[in-house]
């Protein structure tokens, strides 16, 4: 696989290292002279100096081939957006991955259809939520384009839904239970499935309906 990486900071350089180790072809683009010199000592001809938002720099890096994947991993979100737009729309790169530095910029990436995106803050927040679940509900996956999310709920001994059948639960509109894990075995619940304490329930719902779902399933 041929991968073009824009931005040779910690993220970009380590990605390049990992991808090269697993036998891929990589070109890394770095703008800062001091950083470039360090990278060149390690990556030699596989690193190119320049501003990856300049068309001629991207072209020198081989974007016209085009690469199988472009990763925009600079420390500037606007740069990452422009790099992805140029790659996809001007050069026909089909797969792009963008790094988000400031999670407040996420709406811009969504608005301009740049996905997938990766943000360290977002990833760590998800882990924090997983480790310290807030009120028994964990966000597992956000399907941004579809405006849906998948959450996990642990049914406790005094949970409202404990001992009830699915059809008896007044689930909020747009919410569905998609699986129930009991004693390590997952089952797709139907109307007659009875929930028990200790169950791990996966649900799909529209963002913003979490409180409603929590009320139906968990409030004693």
């Amino acid at each position, binding site marked *: 696989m041929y991968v073009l990486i824009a931005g040779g900071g910690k993220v970009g350089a380590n990605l390049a290292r990992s991808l090269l180790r697993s036998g891929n072809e990589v070109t890394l683009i770095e703008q800062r002279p001091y950083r470039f010199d360090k990278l060149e000592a390690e990556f030699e001809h596989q690193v190119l100096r320049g501003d990856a938002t300049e068309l*001629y720099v991207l072209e020198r890096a081989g974007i016209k081939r085009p690469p199988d994947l472009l990763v925009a991993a600079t420390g500037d*979100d*606007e740069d990452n*957006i*422009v790099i992805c737009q140029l790659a996809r729309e001007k050069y026909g790169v089909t797969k792009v991955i963008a790094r988000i530095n400031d999670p*407040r910029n996420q709406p*811009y990436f969504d608005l301009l259809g740049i996905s997938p995106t990766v943000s360290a803050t977002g990833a760590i927040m998800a882990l924090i939520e997983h480790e310290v679940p807030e009120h028994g509900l964990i966000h597992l996956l956000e399907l941004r384009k579809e405006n849906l999310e998948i959450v996990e709920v642990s049914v406790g001994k005094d949970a409202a839904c404990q001992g009830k059948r699915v059809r008896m639960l007044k689930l909020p509109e747009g919410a569905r239970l998609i699986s129930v894990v009991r004693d390590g075995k997952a089952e797709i619940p139907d109307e007659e499935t009875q929930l028990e304490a200790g169950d791990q329930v996966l649900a799909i719902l529209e963002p913003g309906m979490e409180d409603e779902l929590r009320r139906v399933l968990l409030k004693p």
Partner: protein
Amino acid sequence: MQVVGVRCAAVKAIVIGCGRVGSSVALQLAGSGWDVTVLDENEDALGRLGETWTGGFQVGHGMDLHLLRDSGIEEADAVVVATNGDNTNLVIAQAAQKHFQVPTVVARVLDPARSQFYAARGLRIVCPTSSAIESLVSAVRAGETEGAVVS
């Protein structure tokens, strides 16, 4: 015949980036009676608008969606994006056009190559570099001609 009501409210513009370009654009628009709000990261940039500035001024980054809303972008007739970052201008201009549906959005982009690409995608771009190149080339050509005539 139906008489169409005359619009009384001033035309509203948001100018993002209050450097030499942004501040002059804001002053000219305000001078012709527009309701102008200026955004800049740096509070000192307000000084560029002079002591008699009566329009709006907000301190913050132009990428801040809350700030854009507070500045009234949703009701704006025009947005001028002129920060000192080409890519910042391109991203904000796209949001103003696509997300806030501002009727007139103009962005300043110094790089002619990126200007051309985004102009082709429907953004209104002003590229001072291209204008400078044209002016310089035509000035040199005019000089040659004159020189040729004199000699």
